[in-house]
């Protein structure tokens, strides 16, 4: 489905902000050895594509509250570096072989080098946050560090929850479990903190950023559920990752949790046995059966409905969070991103 025609302005503004962010990123990567197994690999993920939601939200919020996007560029670059670091490690953690249509870092360069490249991206994110000192001053720089510290802290805890469910073959999960994990793993760093940081920078620390918490959470959760849906129903060439990979991996998505909780006893037991097997021992027939079970139980429909309800809630919270701010292309973009995120097909 073509979303570009409806969201052309969103994509244009996101593209502009991403280009600015990449300009800063390129200056952060050292031009020295070791190159082949480290510094030449760092730009691979961010040059491969991606929409740049996180830096885009940060810069757009900064502008929407009346700030200058240039003052938020270093922070936006740090957010994008941390995001790409998470992707490199996340691909290892869930055994993905494709990212944005190309081999993942560890698939192409080996596990050890990929782990180290992910570490390097995190290390590089420190510099722009430190350099905020020269443009934002000590108090605001410290405040941004606090925001980022909370953000990464929550993300690793959320990731641990999700990985732990797979490792422990957890079966007694519910929607609340999923929503809490998604808040911690995805929403703080994808939506909430980018908006908070942008608003703090744009108002020199005067804006009360808590107004973005619910807005960012609902939007991020809607986005994550949509991403999980695309993993099952998207087109592989556009989605960029192997379709059905989440079922292969046994990832506890909202769909899988719904199926776990609504399957009749025999199907539930078969599902439990499938999830108890190591990934290498799962078959394509099993994966298709899980997918058809989700269809029979309308688990994907349920997830799609949940994503839209959360998007609706995000739209309501947008009105609260951005109330009183003048109309601007950036404010409009942030509102439209909510629907863009859940209607995208890649």
């Amino acid at each position, binding site marked *: *489905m073509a979303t570009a025609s409806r969201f052309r302005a969103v994509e244009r503004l996101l593209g502009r902000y991403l280009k600015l962010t990449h300009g800063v990123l390129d200056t952060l990567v050292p031009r020295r050895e070791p190159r082949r197994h480290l510094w030449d690999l760092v730009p691979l993920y961010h040059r491969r594509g991606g929409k740049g939601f996180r830096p885009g939200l940060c810069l757009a919020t900064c502008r929407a*509250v009346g700030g200058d996007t240039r003052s938020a560029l270093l922070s936006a670059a740090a957010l994008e570096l941390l995001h790409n670091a998470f992707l490199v490690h996340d691909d290892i953690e869930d055994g993905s*072989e494709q990212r944005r249509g190309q081999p993942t870092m560890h698939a192409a360069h080996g*596990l050890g080098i990929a782990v180290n490249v992910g570490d390097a991206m995190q290390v590089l994110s420190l510099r722009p946050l430190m350099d905020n000192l020269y443009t934002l001053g000590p*108090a605001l720089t*410290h405040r941004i560090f*606090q925001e980022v510290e*909370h953000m990464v802290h*929550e993300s690793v805890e959320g990731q641990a929850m999700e990985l732990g469910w797979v490792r422990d073959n957890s079966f007694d999960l519910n*929607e*609340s479990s999923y*929503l*809490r994990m998604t*808040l*911690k793993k995805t929403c703080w760093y994808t939506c909430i903190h980018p908006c908070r940081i942008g608003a703090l920078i744009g*108002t020199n620390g*005067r*804006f*009360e950023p*808590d*107004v973005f*918490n*619910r807005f960012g*959470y609902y939007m991020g959760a809607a986005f994550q559920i949509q991403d999980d849906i695309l993993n*099952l*129903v998207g087109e592989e060439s556009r989605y960029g990752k*192997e*379709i*059905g*990979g989440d079922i*292969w991996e046994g990832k506890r998505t909202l769909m899988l949790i719904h199926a776990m909780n609504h399957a009749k006893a025999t199907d539930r037991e078969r599902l439990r046995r499938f999830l108890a097997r190591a990934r*290498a021992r799962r078959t*394509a*027939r099993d*994966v*298709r*059966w*899980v*997918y*058809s079970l989700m*269809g029979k139980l309308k688990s*994907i*429909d349920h997830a799609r409905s*949940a994503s*839209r*309800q*959360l*998007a*609706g809630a995000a*739209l*309501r919270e947008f009105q*609260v*969070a*951005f*109330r009183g*701010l003048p109309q601007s292309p950036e404010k409009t973009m942030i*509102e439209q991103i*909510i*629907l863009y995120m859940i*209607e995208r097909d890649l």
Partner: protein
Amino acid sequence: MAKPRAQRTPSQHRARNDPDARGASPADAGTPERGPIDAPSTAEIARGFGQRTSVVVQQAASILEEELAAGIVAARQMADKFMGTRSAQSSNPEDLLPRFRKDAHEVVDMLIDVLTAGTRSVGKIAQRVVRFRVGPIAGKKSPAAAESVPVLSTPAPVTAGEAARLEMSVENDGAEPTEQFEFHSSDLVSETGHRIAASRVTFHPESVILEPGQRAKVTIAVNVPDSSPAGAYTAVLQATKMGQLRAMLVVRVSGDK
């Protein structure tokens, strides 16, 4: 470190001469989910949400409040309360916050101790008035947001298996009418970590609209499960759309049966 086994993708499965690999994509399982996704407008989505209570959104709201109470927001709120205690150690308020955030668990324990001590010393509390102002200017802290969070506590301990009831008054002392708003609660958590699910907390009426100067009574009922051990259970209450309207709810469950 052991070399990881190569893992086959669905496309690699298809390359093998394996009957299981025929139509290996989940999309070939014949379910109706493939195809263009409906594209509702922004107004349709917002209207659809507003027309019915969304369980998933309520759950998300409660979870957020719990997480915030346990983390950075609780640390910020307690920083003011305990500033006097810590000021001897540091005269720079900005040094205190990282210390409070690092000791977030200790801060939450202190909050629970304060509330527990407070409920023991209070007699019957018929009702509490929670006042708020409508329509804060974006970017400026509303006066209500700067006030301490009020505590709503049951007048007497309730036995497990029974319902605790208390009343809350909400008053609009602003100059504009409110939008329709609802209340929701986080799980109640005791000092020993036992929980009473948020779904056991109900509000009557479920939603409120207030004209300027109008006051309304809201009855909060907590259906305490039979299995709840004795203790003081605490939750965060918050109103939708009114980020500054929040309160702590404390329900004391007795050990008597």
